């Protein structure tokens, strides 16, 4: 087998050791943590902005799509190749270029792992606030593309609130610098617009982020409930009381039992739901807030409210939450994690609704919520070898997301639209809204070479709006499920819906 002319040209521009092209190598780049569609034509590993410029110019000349990729932990198909082309992996652009504690900022390459930045500034008493569950693996470049969240974004905001400036390679290969190392640079806020644009407007090659000082005190509580409704009512009441914890997470009984079996975090397996609540800040504030939170929990029939007394106990409680997806994977051959948002006051109603959906479709659904900001992650458990069940999963998930939209919520709170939900965009956006997005995209990405098939609807759908990712392995044209059995814990799609 010989490399294609495109591969040879890539090798010439960025070096032989920086290009993958053999089918067995490319296969590893077919999917993210959600799904797969098809293999790219080549994977290239730039080590500099100049390399990215070279790649972009070549892609332009050859008219091939370019898809940026961090660690591939996306849950919406962001880095999944929809139409072939070149995957630009930022795995080798992983330098922390500058740490500037006096100015509370850092400059990083896109391949820097999220947690590594926090670790690098920990000694100075600082951290980088957005903390997606995948933070041990996911990259800051990926976080910028998806505008990632995490449990602690409840108090501190998602990625866009922590990015000051970007270096971006545009579709035509030009390099621009948006924002600055200070706030309010005159002009349109291109940085804010680019964060969350899912790789469809440019390739980010450098990121200036804001660092935050570690709080003096942290208190972590676990409130245990016999009724799910009592837990969701607690969330609504805490919000109404104006208490904004640093994190406010909910897990239901299905999730708890799986998590406990996998991690031994100390969660009660006989309860219907728990709230994991963390407050941070000044010692005095944290003490008072923890007391108020405990009272509100008890007023809503919490059976027990535990406080982590040691750092070890706190870490154990969080270990359960951060590994919850994986834990559910242990009790089911496959799972599908959804990401919707609703007004927080409607959590009780929404949970009942999810339960009804589960019963109607005969599916087991575990619920893990960033409850404090109304961001739901229902996990639908299923067996991808059962085509009929796969069909029901898609139906159930589509119904849940439609319900979020109907309640005045959103179809995604932090995972992104990607190729999972682009056809669902009309649930919350009018044709005029989408037309403006399309026009702005065309201004940045005129030939559609940057991450095609993402974010915006294809315009080819008619009638019912539903999630477009295929669940099953049965009718699959891809061999990923069979060859990589370990991936079975994550839901792996098949690309069956595409030519």
């Amino acid at each position: 087998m010989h490399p294609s002319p495109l591969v040879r040209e890539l090798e010439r521009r960025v070096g032989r050791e920086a290009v993958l092209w053999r089918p067995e190598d490319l296969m590893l780049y077919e999917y993210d943590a959600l799904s797969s569609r098809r293999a790219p034509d080549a994977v290239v590993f730039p080590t500099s902005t100049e390399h990215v410029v070279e790649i972009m110019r070549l892609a332009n000349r050859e008219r091939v799509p370019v898809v940026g990729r961090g660690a591939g932990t996306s849950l919406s198909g962001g880095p999944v190749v929809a139409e072939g082309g070149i995957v630009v992996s930022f795995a080798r652009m992983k330098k922390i270029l500058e740490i500037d504690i006096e100015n509370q900022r850092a400059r990083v390459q896109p391949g820097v792992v999220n947690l590594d930045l926090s670790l690098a500034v920990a000694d100075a008493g600082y951290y980088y606030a957005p903390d997606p569950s995948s933070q041990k693996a996911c990259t800051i470049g990926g976080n910028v593309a998806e505008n990632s969240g995490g449990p602690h974004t409840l108090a501190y905001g998602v990625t866009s609130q922590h990015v000051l400036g970007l270096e971006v390679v545009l579709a035509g290969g030009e390099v621009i610098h948006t924002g600055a190392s200070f706030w309010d640079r005159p002009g349109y806020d291109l940085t804010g617009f680019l964060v969350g644009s899912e790789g469809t407007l440019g390739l980010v090659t450098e990121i200036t982020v804001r660092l935050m000082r570690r709080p003096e005190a942290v208190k972590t509580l676990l409130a245990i409930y016999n009724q799910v409704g009592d837990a969701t009512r607690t969330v609504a009441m805490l919000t109404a009381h104006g208490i904004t914890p640093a994190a406010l997470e909910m897990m239901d009984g299905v999730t708890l039992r799986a998590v406990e079996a996998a991690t031994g975090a100390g969660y009660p397996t006989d309860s219907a739901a728990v709230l994991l609540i963390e407050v941070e800040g000044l010692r005095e504030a944290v003490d008072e807030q923890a007391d108020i939170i405990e009272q509100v929990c008890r007023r809503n029939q919490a059976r027990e409210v535990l406080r982590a007394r040691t750092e070890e106990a706190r870490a154990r409680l969080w270990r359960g939450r951060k590994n919850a997806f994986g834990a559910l994977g242990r009790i089911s051959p496959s799972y599908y994690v959804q990401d919707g948002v609703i007004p927080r006051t409607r959590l009780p109603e929404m949970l009942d609704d999810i339960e009804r959906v589960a019963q109607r479709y005969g599916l087991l659904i575990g619920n893990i919520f960033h409850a404090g900001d109304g961001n739901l992650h229902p996990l639908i458990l299923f067996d991808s070898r059962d085509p009929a069940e796969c069909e029901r999963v898609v139906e159930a998930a589509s119904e849940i997301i439609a319900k979020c939209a109907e309640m005045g919520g959103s179809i995604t709170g932090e995972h992104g639209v990607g190729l999972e939900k682009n056809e669902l965009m009309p649930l919350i956006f009018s044709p005029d809204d989408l037309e403006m997005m399309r026009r702005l995209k065309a201004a940045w990405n005129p030939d559609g070479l940057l991450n095609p098939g993402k974010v915006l609807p294809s315009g080819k759908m008619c009638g019912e709006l539903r999630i477009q990712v295929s669940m099953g392995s049965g009718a699959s044209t891809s061999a990923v499920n069979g060859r990589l059995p370990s991936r079975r814990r994550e839901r792996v799609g098949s690309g069956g819906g595409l030519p």
Partner: protein
Amino acid sequence: MTTATQGAAAEMAAIVGESRVVTDPAARAGYAVDGETPQCVVYAPSAEQVAAVLRHAADRRLAVIPVRNLTKIGLGQRPRAYDVALSLKEMNQVWYYEPDDLTVSVEPGMKLGDFQHFLSRHNLWLPVDPPGGEKASIGGILAANASGPLRLRYGTARDFTIGMKIATTEGKIVKTGGRVVKNVAGYDLAKLLIGSCGTLGVIVEASFKLFPRPAQRLTFAVAVPALGQARDLRRRIQQSALEPLRILLLAGEAPRLLGPDSGSAGRERALQLWIEAGGSAAVVDRYARALDDLARRCGLTIERLDEEIAAPAWARLCDAPAALAPALPITATLKATLPIAATEEFVGRSEEEAGREGARVAVLAQVGVGVTRLVVLEAERNRLAGLVARLRGAASALGGALVVEQCPWEAKSEIDVWGPPGDDFEMMRKIKAAWDPSGVLSPGRFVGGL
């Protein structure tokens, strides 16, 4: 007035009603922007009518500047053209309010003071203290991305705006975001509109996440003999566990003109550092102890201000040009943004540079975030351009930028109020073209003549 615009005024009247189009010269003069008087003032009562007015203006190539209370109308270059002042005064309703969810949707013409009053029923607020104060409108705050010292704790409109509806020059109403506090569906158009100074579209509704008001607030003032000490104290506060609501350094003429009335002659000559803390009684008490300790380590003495003195004093400080204007001729207001650690040095440089151009400046530096506002007093008009150039040079040498927020329009022919655009300007131009293809919204006022 030309026949064409008379015709246009009549057509505008067909959209919004006869009584909502004003062509009276005195009324129009009140809406002059940088010496340009519009041909008519149109009061649009609804989002649909704003859209219809914009579409009509685009069809007829009539230049439109959206306005409300004119608190920030001085921001920008002279308009290339100005036919219609589109007033959003009548759009001042709260459309949606869910206090238990801490979310709200409001029209752009609502004044900040009225909005805060409305929210105070549930002990909530929008934590923003922009120039213009209570008179600033929601739409104006968003369009100018206006903020004040509270951004230290709460950020700016960029951080708490969760959705928007925008009327476009094609007569459409485009939605972005929503009414939930976390949302990554689609491109975030609100980010583009915030700070776009009315050049892309007209914000006809904005949704915010709200915050509970701090149970108690306490203001501290410290007289600081030298900038080095001010910097030392600011660094110690920043490196401590404290998270004040706002910190403001008063320098130049600011302590004398804007400090508390009770000040002694000696303190007036010093710099002042103002710090406000918020929270429960126990938290505020902790601030009192901790700040006292930090100040003593810098050789300084901290003083608590009574809330009756502090609250109006903060209002004056946040809207300094308006507070000073009745008594003094204000020549210009400038805003420098810098990396945090460079702020105090810039404050020192700005006083020197002002002195060189024979001007006096009141300096209000948000030292925790790197934003410095300079109110230029008693500068000779013909030396203003030189002063701006010197100060911009100083800001840029320290890694920052400088914007002229307000100055005599006659001076704008020789002053670039925004400063030079960067290598991302071409993309800004494309964004402008995507929103406003016929170029009728606030033409020429923004960065690089957009």
